[in-house]
């Protein structure tokens, strides 16, 4: 019941160096479910932009379709945004970026949006090293369409419709590494101490910066719960076969030190095991990153932190050698060759 949910308006009313209040980075009141991990990520985005001293109107927000993709409405109300179609945000971001290299492009997407219908655009935007931040709000399910498994859902997880997922999950972090992405990180929605700096680093990275953020869906997460009252509600839902009751829940916040591990209990009582990279982790070595990731997976841990960064990253503009002036600012003089040239063209065609 979001309309009674507190907004992110922070008591602090200090201007940042760019001359903006934190409130200038906020958005409309969220209509996501109370306690949804996505809203925690939204808060981190607000914090990161405020702390980065970015002028809000120099940011372009982009998304696909899903609960996660609604997020751009809930932060940066003074930024333009484009809530595109399902799975195709990267292409719109690519075009927007080509038009104006001087803005910051911040895309959010869901795991359904990115790993299923959008996997093709994900692969290719990362291959092109487009200068953008790509946050995947990863809840292992399709929230907005009521809880189907996504391609990142773990094997054997039970979705609310009751069928067990048989397919091995796609690890988007592993995929991004394999594809040669130049900034690859993972975090947890409730871990602001880790997530805010990661978003800031991603915004500073001159290329494609991917952050996979585990973000529990309080309504359709995929594990059997254990608390008594929750069972009662589940029974109710099963009996009516209507998923129309969403108990109000609290945001899951976690804090744990670099190099350490943390077991997080989700809303339904199930657990996940987070494992934070060491402070001395060298993030410039792609194959150790792949290796480390593989090992964590085998150990049943979800590795978080900045796994890999290519400090020499060349973004798409530099590969295409586009001019320093944003293309959308070039004047007609520069763009239109004019009638004299056309006469030459005609002459060559006779």
């Amino acid at each position, binding site marked *: 019941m979001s309309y009674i949910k507190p907004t992110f308006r922070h008591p602090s009313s200090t201007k940042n160096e760019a001359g903006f209040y934190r409130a*200038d980075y906020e958005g409309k009141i969220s209509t996501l479910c109370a306690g949804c991990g996505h809203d925690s990520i939204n808060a981190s985005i607000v914090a990161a932009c405020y702390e980065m001293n970015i*002028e*809000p*109107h*120099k940011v*372009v*927000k982009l998304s696909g379709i899903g609960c996660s993709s609604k997020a*751009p*409405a809930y932060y940066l*109300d*003074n*930024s*333009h*945004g*484009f*809530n*595109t*179609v399902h799975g*195709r945000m*990267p*292409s*719109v*971001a*690519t*075009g*927007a*970026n*080509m*038009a*104006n290299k*001087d*803005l910051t492009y911040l895309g959010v997407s869901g795991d359904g949006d990115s790993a299923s219908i959008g996997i*093709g*655009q994900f*692969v*290719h935007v990362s291959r*092109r090293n487009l200068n953008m931040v790509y946050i995947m709000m990863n809840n292992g399910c399709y929230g907005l369409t009521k809880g189907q498994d996504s391609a990142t859902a773990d094997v054997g997880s039970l979705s609310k419709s009751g069928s067990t997922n048989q397919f091995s999950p796609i690890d988007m972090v592993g995929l991004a590494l394999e594809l040669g992405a130049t900034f690859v990180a993972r975090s947890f929605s409730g871990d602001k101490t880790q997530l805010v700096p990661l978003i800031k680093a991603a915004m500073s990275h001159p290329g494609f910066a991917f952050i996979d953020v585990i973000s529990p869906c309080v309504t359709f997460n995929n594990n059997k719960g254990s608390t008594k009252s929750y069972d009662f509600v589940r029974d109710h839902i099963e009996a009516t076969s209507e998923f129309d009751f969403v108990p109000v829940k609290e945001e899951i916040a976690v804090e744990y030190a670099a190099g350490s591990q943390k077991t997080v209990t989700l809303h339904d009582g199930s657990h996940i095991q987070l494992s934070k990279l060491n402070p001395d982790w060298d993030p410039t070595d792609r194959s150790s990153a792949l290796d480390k990731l593989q090992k964590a997976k085998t150990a049943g841990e979800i590795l978080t932190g900045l796994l890999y960064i290519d400090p020499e990253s060349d973004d*798409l*503009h530099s590969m*295409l*050698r*586009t*001019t*320093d002036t944003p*293309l*959308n600012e*070039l004047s*007609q003089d*520069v*763009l*239109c*060759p*004019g*009638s004299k*040239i*056309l006469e030459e*063209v*005609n002459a060559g*065609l*006779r």
Partner: protein
Amino acid sequence: MSEKIRINDMVVRFANVNGTGSSSSNEIFSKAVFRMGIPVSPKNIFPSNIQGLPTWYEVRISGKGYLGRRDDIDILVGINPQSMEKDIASVRSNGYFIYDNTRQLHDDMIREDIHMIGIPMMQLSIDHYEVPRLQQLFKNIIYIGALATLINLDLDVVKAIISEQFEKKPKLIPPNHKALDLGANWVKENLNYPLDVRLEHSNATGDKIMMDGNAATGLGAVYAGATVLSWYPITPSTSVAKNFETFAKKYRVDPETGQNNFAIIQAEDELAAFGMAMGANWNGARAFTATSGAGISLMNEFIGLAYFAEVPMVLVNVQRGGPSTGMPTRTQQSDLLPCAYASHGDTKHVLLLPATPTECFDFMADAFDLADQLQTVVFLLSDLDLGMNIHMTEPLSWDDARKFNKGKVLNKEELDAVEDYGRFKDVDGDGIGYRVIPGTHPSKGAFLSRGTSHDPYGVYTEDGVVHAGEIDRLIRKFNTAKELVPQPEFYQKENQGKHAIVFFGTTTYAALEAMDILEQNGEPIDAMRLRAFPFSNIVKDFIDAHDTIYVIEQNRDAQCRSLLMIELGIDPTKLKSILNYDGMPITADAILKQLQQHLHDYDGLQPPDHRQNGSSHSLKTTLL
């Protein structure tokens, strides 16, 4: 077997194997005819294949300036054993079949009613060139030399063209000239020449140019200030992108920094290609994509988004033969309806319908202005014939006083002056709101574009009445478009009769020829060439002023006729169809024949039987 001499009036068809380098030499032939001042219209009829399949190159030469196809082939240069039997059969009675007699022709092949002219093309090549692959290449030039002599094509003109073409590789010039002479001399030494059909210098080409539509389209985009192109390869639209790239590299590289004032991305597919161009337009650049066939189908979801989120977008569709993958290297006009109403839900889009490369250039430039003014998708509907064949066309022109019309865009100062900005508020009553480009203003004018329902401020709504109000506004905008788009062209000073023909795009040549013939027969017919959709009142007035309208189009389902009914409320019984959908450009003959049939026994509902070109096509009558 002799007939009277015909000057500057012939159809020459070359039958080759693709991948043998023939189309470049055949193009040299066409250009030489043009340089002699004779109107010429070549059609490259190529397979969906890289090497080894039959390909034809058909050249209509017409002193009168008819640029449409004509069916009866006067001269066939038959180099391809695979298709030879059919090729020989396709020559008109008393026509000429020119072949390579390096290997002897089978007796079965000989037709008594035509002239069979054997020339040892390959032998000449083998005798004079050593490397096999060069033997093959020069054979193509040898037959041009031979043909030139046979029909009085000016050899010096041909040589001049070759010299220009190889200007940057001058060492290629002498062997090519030599090959020309080899062919020419062999004919001079061994045959009677010239033939009864032959050429004469003329001045019927005026200041016209020879250009293909896709080059003109690409150049139009450069002139219109397009800076972003995203595309995915597909025949026949690929060369739009290629040409944009070529011209941009020529005219848009900063001379000082060497940096590009443009960005071209080969996307991973057509969905991404559309999304990228749309994203760039949304962000204030001018951007476009070009595609064909399946690409249009794949873009349907995004087209709907651009329509409803009201993002300017230019989409070039070089139509090919459908349905499905269909005839990817043949021409049709069968995407009219699918483009006019592309995407699910209620949608309507602007279509521009160029008929010549010159119009491809002009309309492409207009397309960007229209897209920006109307904040919607503008389709440039070309086709394979227009896009990939070279056409004799008016020289391109550009008014240096012309300013890009970016439509309703507010800058920071204007925004400051606005009281209550709403992205979709219809303050001018034309259905068009004011855009703000991202980054314009630190605290005003930002909005979240979306494909979901929104109110006039762009804010999400689930209020159905508000939604209905917004899609009503889109109709208002569409009505605004009617008067902004290129208006129809007429060919009569005033209406002359009760019947009229209506056509558009590449049926124009044949339609004009048919009109000419009717006029000569003392039966002039009124005509209107559509140049855009939606149709303006002028279109309706013209139709209303006639009893019967014959709509000429190159598709099976009479799609333009459907659009006329739906959008203008024209009575279907008044709209009769003249159709062609065999993938080849329609002929004046086919138009006249169908017109004839209509005048006799047309029921007004279904197209008549004979829907393809050519008398030799014994298409069985279908039970429609």
